[in-house]
């Protein structure tokens, strides 16, 4: 848990060369996104969820995960990407998101799981793309094996529009 707190303070404290962070990456529309691996609770294959009435269009419903009710969010919907085709590679990443008022468990649906990378904190670049609707979700960008990975700011997910 300390590590996690350490990681959260990366931006404000001085860079430690030895300090790396592990990120679980996944694909959506050919783009690779990454989330902090410590926030990941579980990775599951996609199964249908129980719909919840009067919820946002990108909330697909809830699942019972070993006694815990977990809301499932379609990340494509959340990012206003095109409608997803759920296939055999579609997976749900169950995240435990910590934010200032506490934590919340939530599953996000992504096209396919990719890999786990060790990312040196210093390599993380700020976006600088200005104010954008989706900019608030982006923590930073990192280049792994010559391909760009978008690192996501998880606490923003639980602020529902």
């Amino acid at each position, binding site marked *: 848990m300390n*590590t996690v707190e350490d990681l959260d303070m990366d931006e404000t404290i001085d860079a430690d060369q030895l300090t790396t962070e*592990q990120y*679980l990456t996944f694909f959506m529309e050919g783009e690779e996104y990454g989330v902090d*691996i*410590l926030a*990941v*609770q*579980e*990775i*599951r*294959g996609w199964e249908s969820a129980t719909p919840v009435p009067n919820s946002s269009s990108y909330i697909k419903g809830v699942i019972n995960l070993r006694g815990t009710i977990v809301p499932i969010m379609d990340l494509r919907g959340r990012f206003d990407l095109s409608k997803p085709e759920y296939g*055999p*590679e579609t*997976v749900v990443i169950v995240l435990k998101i910590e934010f200032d008022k506490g934590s919340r468990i939530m599953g996000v649906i992504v096209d396919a*799981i990719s*890999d*786990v990378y060790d990312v040196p904190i210093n390599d993380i670049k700020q976006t600088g793309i200005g104010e954008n609707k989706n900019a608030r979700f982006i923590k930073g960008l990192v280049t792994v094996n010559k391909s760009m990975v978008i690192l996501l700011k998880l606490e923003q997910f639980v602020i529902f529009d």
Partner: protein
Amino acid sequence: MDFFNNISFKNKVLLPWLLPVIGLLYAYATLPTGVASNSVLVIILLCVIGGVVSWLIGHNASTLMGAGSDHTGADDYKSDQGKLIAIDKVQAIIEFNMDGTIITANDNFLSAVGYSLDEIKGRHHGIFVDSNFKESQEYRDFWSELNKGKFEAGEYKRLAKGGREIWIQASYNPIVNEQGTPYKVVKFATDVTDIKLESANNKGKVDAINISQACIEFNMDGTIITANDNFLNAVGYTLDEIKGHHHSIFVEPEYKNSQEYTAFWEQLNRGEYEAKEYKRLGKNGKEIWIQASYNPILDLNGKPYKVVKFATDITTQTNENISNNRIKRALDSCAESCLMVADEDYNLVYTNKGVQDMFEVAESEIIKSIPSFNADKVLGQNIDVFHKNPSHQRSMLNELTSVHKAQLNLGDRIFVLIVNPVFDDSRVRIGTVVEWNDITEKLAKETEDKRISDENTRVRRALDACTANTMVADNDLNVIYANDAVLGMLNTAESDIQKQLPNFRTNNLIGSNIDIFHKNPSHQRKMLAALNDTYRTQIDVGGRKFTLIANPISNDEGDRLGTVVEWNDRTQEVAVEEEVDTIIEAAGKGDLTQRAEVSGKTGFFKELAMGLNSLMSISENAINDTARVLAGMAQGNLDERIDSDYEGVFGQLKDDANTTGIKLTEVIGSIREAAQTVQTGSTEIAQGNTDLSQRTEEQASSLEETAASMEEMTSSVKQTSENAVHANQLASAAQDRAEKGGEVVGRAVGAMEEINSSSKKIADIIGVIDEIAFQTNLLALNAAVEAARAGEQGKGFAVVAGEVRNLAQRSAGAAKEIKDLIRDSVEKVDNGTELVNESGKTLSEIVEAVAKVSTMIKEISSASEEQASGIEQVNKAISQMDEMTQQNAALVEEASAASETMTEQATSMMNLMGFFQTEDRGRAVPVAVTQTVKSQAQARSISGSNSVASRPVITDSDDDWQEF
């Protein structure tokens, strides 16, 4: 005054005193106003008026009281008043002053006269009477009587409004005052106009009866009450003479005492009416006939109280009837003349016995014209039954004024009718008398007499005009008739006859005895007397020969009446007969030169001689001419002709002889021409035969060539047939193989499908592997996550997880590759399957095509077999043709020989025809020769040229050729 009548008595008494009181009150009221001078005057005036009126009313009231003075008390007065009202309702009432002016009138009166009260009030009564009466003394007296207070009552004629006449039953009542002087007149009236009119009407009727009829009235016991003038005139009594006497004074004493008469009156007393004709006695026993009715008059209880008798004097008619009856009896007994009488309507009212008998006799004939006729029912029928056109007949009869005779044909009967109109004394037509006369038999007799007389005249005239010489003698043989012809003949022969009978004179013939012609009269007489049939004889008198034909004449009863003799002078006739005999005998022997002597002959005989001569000469000429022509023909000269004109049979003979010459010339010419043609033709035939022979040989050789080439063709066709069979075998082999190929393809397709299915299974397995790889990957990732959480302690585990993930990813990649390969191989297998299927289809098409080829080859094979047999038949035909051609060649030779013979015979015929000499013989022969030469030259030139050009000649001779 009505006003007063209508108010109560109390009021009437009070009223007079009211007016002065009103006057005083008025005066009192006006005094203080200061118009004293006028007021005094008004007061005085009102008082005076009040006084007068009071007096008047008082007076009236007292009068009324006086009218009801028989009664005492108010009830009596009321009763009177009621009566007055009743009278007022029922009767017309009018009141006048004594001078006649009208005071008032009630409604009844006003409605009767049609005026309103205002119109008549104050007017004089004179407006109700006509102006004449108004001016009369009578009217003035009427009013002066009333003024004297005298009462008047009666029926009056009065004029209502507009001059309408009304009758009233009225009483004029002058009303007298206390002094006894009348002061007004009250008139009560009832309108009796209707009653008056009806009574006037009845009176008119009674008057009319009185004028026209005799009228007498009796009491029921038969005593006479009264009688009118007509009755008195009829019986000759005066009224005084009979009044009070019994009715029996008018009847005969026997009748008066009879039961019948008593019964007659009893009947009348019972109220029964009787009417008929009665015989009554007038004054002095004068007999009169009356048509009378006795009418009992009944009183109101229905009991007769008097008898009124109306009578008409019919004595005259009755007497006339008796007289008429007498005449009728007379007519009835009149049997000979047939009489019939019709009334003015032409109904038959009388037929006497004569006419009745006549009708019965003629009934069967009359029925033919009038089918409805019946002799028994003539009486009562209309005379129209005798006429087909009754209207015409009627108009004629209506205009009849005197005797008219007419003839009427009914059936075969003829009647003469004498029609007499019957008038009465005043020249009024009352009927018609018709007298019938059946003249049928009389007419028939007259017609027969006339016919016989006409017949006699006709025979006599015929004899006069007849050219036969006829003479008639009576029983004493005196000549009583000789016709013009016999007289003429005897006149001519008179001189000759006189030679033998010197006493004969033609002019004395009629009347003289027939004996003058005979030397022996007694024999002649005897013979003629015995004559009962035609007798012919010939006598010679003075060289003249006469033929006599005597016939006896008898009447119908067979009595001899005389003898008729027919003369005929035959002298000249006999001479001519002999001469004609001579000529005809010579002609019979062929001598036609004999002629009859013409001179000395006249009339018929001269004509006969000239005719005979002309006949002889014509016959001679005709026979000579004919002989000449026939002699020429016998010598071969056909140009002789008869040129003279003949008629009839001779004309026919001439025409036939000439025609024979002409026809023979024509026939011989035709035969000659035909012979020449035959000669030319036979020469041409001979030439044609030669050509034909040559061509036949050519034909035979070309037929041989044809036969050879046909054989070659046969062998080639046979080969074709064999080849076809071989090809057929090959085709079926190809078909078998193609079918086998098809089967192989099918198997290949099966194998391919199996490969496909196993590939799919592999793909499934790969899928499972892939799934496992995916799950492994997820697990590895989860492990990585767990390792990351474990921090430093999890680092080793993280490496393991990474390795696992690597393996998983590799196995997933390998699975993907295998999947791709499998997909590829499946695709290729699919392609292979498609191709194999296509090749299978193609193979089956090949099989079909091969089957078609095989059928075609079979057809070719059978066709070539047929060809082979056809060619064989052609071969046979050609060999037959060859045979025929050879036979033809032989025939052509024979024809050639025959045509030469024909040429020879034609030449000999030409020579024979040379015997006849005709006008054109000189030029006909050379022409024929040149024609022959020409045609031969032509034939030769044709045969020299090509065979196509010679074809027309061949077609010309075709018919002849076929006959061979």
